[in-house]
C-alpha cells in the first residue's frame, strides 16, 4: 500500500502530536516525524500543514533568533490544537480498530 496516501490523511494528527511533545520549528518537526517512523513525509507537506494549522488557530508561533542564518519560527500547540488532536486521535483509533478488525477477521 502506498504510505504517502495514508500520510496525507493523518499528517494533521501527526504534526499536532509532535508539536504537543515539544515546540518545534518547521524542519525540526520534519525530522522528528521521520525519526518517529514516518520516513515518507515530505518537507513541503509538513511546512504546509504547519502553516494551515497555524492559520486555523490550532497552533501558535513565536520567533527565536538564531546565531547563524535567519531566525526560526517555532510552533506551539494551544488549547484549540489539543482539542483538535483529541478529536482526531479518537477518529484515528476508531478507524484503526475497524481496519484491524477487518484484517484480523479476514480468513473468516
Amino acid at each position, binding site marked *: 500500500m502506498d504510505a504517502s496516501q495514508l500520510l496525507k490523511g493523518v499528517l494533521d494528527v501527526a504534526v499536532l502530536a509532535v508539536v504537543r511533545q515539544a515546540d518545534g520549528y518547521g524542519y525540526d518537526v520534519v525530522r522528528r516525524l521521520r525519526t518517529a517512523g514516518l520516513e515518507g513525509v515530505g518537507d513541503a507537506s509538513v511546512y504546509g500543514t504547519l502553516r494551515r494549522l497555524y492559520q486555523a488557530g490550532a497552533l501558535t508561533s513565536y520567533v527565536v533568533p538564531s546565531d547563524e542564518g*535567519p531566525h526560526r519560527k517555532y510552533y506551539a500547540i494551544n488549547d484549540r490544537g489539543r482539542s483538535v488532536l483529541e478529536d482526531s486521535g479518537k477518529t484515528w483509533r476508531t478507524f484503526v480498530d475497524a481496519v484491524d478488525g477487518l484484517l484480523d477477521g479476514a480468513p473468516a
Partner: protein
Amino acid sequence: MTAPIAPGTQEARDYLADVEHELADLPADERAALLEDLEQHLAALAEEGDDCPLVIRLGSPAAYAEELRAAAGLPAQGGARPAPRRDELRRLLAQVEAHPLTGEVRRLWAELRPAWWVLRGYLLIALPSALAGQWDFPVPAALGSHVLGLLLVVGAIAGSVVLGRRQLTPSATRLLTVGGAVLALLSFLVAVGGTQSSTYVDYATPVVYDQAVGDFPLVSRYGPVTDVLPYAADGTPLQGVLLYDQDGRPLQVGVQEWWADGCSRVLRQPLAADGVPVPHAFPQTYVLDPTGGGLEDPALCDLVTDRPEVSLPVFPSAAATGTPAVPTSAVPTSAVPTSAVPAPAPTSALPTGAVPTPAPAPATPTGAAGN
C-alpha cells in the same frame, strides 16, 4: 516579497526564486509567509551540511510548491482560473439537459433499447460468421449450417434481451456497454468494407467512367465515346476512315443506344472482303432498327442523322506550308477497306489542334450514359 536575509548559497537562492515564481498567483501576505518558512527551511538544510542537491532533497521547485499548496489547503496553481470555464461547461450541460429535445431523445433511446438488445444478439452471431466468410443474409450460416446459425441467433437474442431486462451491477453494465459498442463498431466496419468490396461487381461500373471498360472501351472526360467524326483539314467530312491507337490497335468505341429522336438503331459495320465487320471505320454507321424495336412511330424517326455542327480550325493554305497535309483520298463514300493494315494516317501530318470538338446539335444522339 524577498526575504530579509537571503539564504547562503546560489542554489538555495535560485530554488527560493523558483518556488516564489510558482506561488505567484497567491495573495502577497500568504506567499510571503510561505517563502519565509521556505527560507528558514533552506537555511536549516544548509546547516545539515548535506551535499545532496536541493532538487533531489526536496524535489523540483514546482513539485515543492504544489505539495506546499496542497498541505496548506491552498488552491493548486491555476486552479482558480479554470473554475469559471468548468462552470460555463456545467451551465451549458444544464441547458442541454433542460432542453425539451433532450427529454425526447432520452425517451426515444429508452424505447429503442429493446431493439438494440435484439440487434446485438443477432450481431453477436452474425459478426463472427461474416468474419469467417460464412455471411449469408439474413441468417448467418454458422459453421456452414443455416439451422445452427438460426438456433444460435435465437439463443443469442434471447440471452441479450434477458441481460438487458435484468438489473446489473455498475461494473457489469459498463462491461456490457463497452462490449456492445465494440460489437456495433466492428459490424459497421465489416458492413462498410463488405459494401465496398461488392460494388465493382454490381452497379458502380456503368456510372464510373474514369476507366474504359466493358461496353465503353473509349472514354473521354465527357463520358463514353460512341463515335468519332473525322474531318479533312479543309473541313470536308470524311467517311470510312480507319482509326488506330498509338500501338496500331484498331480504335474501338461503345455502341450508341439512345438517340435524340427516340428511335432505336442498330450498328451496321462495314464488312471486309472476308465478311468480317470492321468496327474501326469512322464515323460509325447506324441504321434504323428493322424490327421496329423503338417505341416511336418509324415515320417520325430521322432517316438521316446529321453530324453535329463542329467548329473547325482554319489552317494556313497548303501552298504556304508546302506540306501534303490535305488528304485527297478521303472521299466521302463508304470506302470499305480491304485490309486492316493502316494506311499512312493523314492525321499524322496535321497539327494536334486539328481534331475538332463536336458541338452538340439538336439532332445529336443524346449519348449512351442513360442506362
